[in-house]
């Protein structure tokens, strides 16, 4: 008598396996991209704010077969730098994209800093804030992203100062409005923290013109006016 051999059913091969529900929209594969203008004051420090280059055919020049040459060229022309997941300089952050299994059509790609849990058929996304900040710190120290420039730092601080100015105007017009008052306090604190955390490499805040980057101007001898 020969035995009928069965195959062990693993959780991943059953319908009951944990997957994101159908209602979750598919998200395409992506690469992070960084731009000299995209910085954020996050957790008390200045960190780059990466965007995503969607590797979705038809988006921003990604071709039908998934070719990225055109898309990358356009992004580079606009000042973006690509953070390729296979860049060895990423160290422990190499291969930062993960695929999360999903029911129904499509696939969901997220960063390794996102984690989904399904509680009662509803999806909750947890984000590893500290890991995300570590990643952003790392791409600066690894030389993938240049440090913030003085011009961009000044621009970001100016934006925050404008937000505080607008709130001050509203708080003055509506002194009884406690919500605006508390928001003003919060934004002022944020402005103070932004200036206190001025990156050391930017110096003391006085504008200096380096010889190397100086735009050369031709000396013009002013003519005597008639």
């Amino acid at each position, binding site marked *: 008598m020969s035995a009928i051999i069965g195959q062990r059913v693993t959780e991943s091969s059953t319908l009951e396996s944990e997957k994101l529900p159908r*209602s979750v*929209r598919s*998200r*395409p594969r992506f690469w992070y*991209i960084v*731009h000299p*203008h*995209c910085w*954020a004051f*996050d957790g008390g420090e200045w960190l780059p*704010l*990466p*965007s*995503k*280059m*969607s590797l*979705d*055919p*038809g*988006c*921003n*020049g*990604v*071709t*039908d077969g998934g070719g990225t040459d*055109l898309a990358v060229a*356009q*992004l580079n*022309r*606009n*000042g*973006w730098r690509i953070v390729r997941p296979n860049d060895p300089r990423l160290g422990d952050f190499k291969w930062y994209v993960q695929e999360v299994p999903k029911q*129904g*059509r499509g696939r969901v790609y*997220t*960063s390794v*800093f*996102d984690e989904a849990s399904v509680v009662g058929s509803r999806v909750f*996304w947890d*984000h590893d*804030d500290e890991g*995300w900040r570590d990643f952003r710190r790392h791409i600066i120290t690894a030389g993938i992203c240049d440090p913030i420039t003085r011009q961009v730092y000044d621009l970001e601080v100016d*934006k925050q100062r*404008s*937000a505080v100015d*607008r*709130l001050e105007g*509203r708080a003055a*017009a*509506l002194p009884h*409005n406690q*919500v*605006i008052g508390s*928001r003003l306090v919060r*934004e002022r604190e*944020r402005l103070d923290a932004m200036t206190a955390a001025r990156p050391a490499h930017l110096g003391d805040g006085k504008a200096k013109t380096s010889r190397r980057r100086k735009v050369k101007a031709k000396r013009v001898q002013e003519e005597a006016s008639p």
Partner: protein
Amino acid sequence: MANEITYTGSGASTRQQEVYGRLLHELLMDPTDLRSTVTNLGDIGGSGSSTLTVGTVDYDLAMGAANADEVTGSDNTAVTVGAVSISIAHNLIAFGMSDLHSVTGAPGMLDLQALAAKGAQAYALRFTDLVMAAADTITANVGTSGADMTVDDFFSATAQLQSSLAVGPYTAVLAPVQVTDLQASLRSEGGAISFLPATAAQLALKGPGYQGQFMGCDIWQSDSCTTSGGNRIGAMWGAGCIGYVEASARGSMPGAIAAGSASPVYAEFVRTGDPGISQVIHHAFIGCGLLETGRGVNITTDA
């Protein structure tokens, strides 16, 4: 093949539920269609290429005073010319239905014709995903990572567009949580600030997803807004920020149903005799891209 709609079985089966319930309930979804908010760059069907390159010309060319000596020419002014390329890609969606499911159907039940009518909606959903993915590469950014969206962020976004001379009309596409946070913030505002919610006439004109107007800016809600770093990335843009290209096949494919004039979606019905499956397949060719980053701003706030 997989995911066929069958009479028996679980999951995709609808017939048993229909027999008892006599109706279908559509689950919640986001049918936002952003086609009216971005620039149509045309139809490249029959053009010989799957990529459209749009020339960009800088006409910010003010006249200068002529040379005072009256005899020296000024020479030609250089016109800065660049280009943006957008490639189209093939998109499709197919629905299959078993014979048993089809032959037991009655008027009003789910059938292939009902699924065929969903092709246009599937196209709009795909379109919205592409637009928001393209918007993710806008360089200007407002909002605070990890903090709820406020009216201040909205002001900052409009100020950013105005300072970069972006021309209107302005459109804001926000994630659902950003819209609710914005409304919560608005409730604490005083003075003459008011949100104009969408009327029935506006909804009919602009389609689903339109939420209303604030400070002259149309607001749309979409769950296609991308995420990054635990935040949702909404966006606000003026005219000419994002463009799209289509390639209408006009039903020229053998066996396909002729699409309406200039419609990018065409359909075909496929019959597989064994085991008896009928399919309707919708095809569309589309590409979408950022045309000029200065005309837009991203709004990054807590998810």
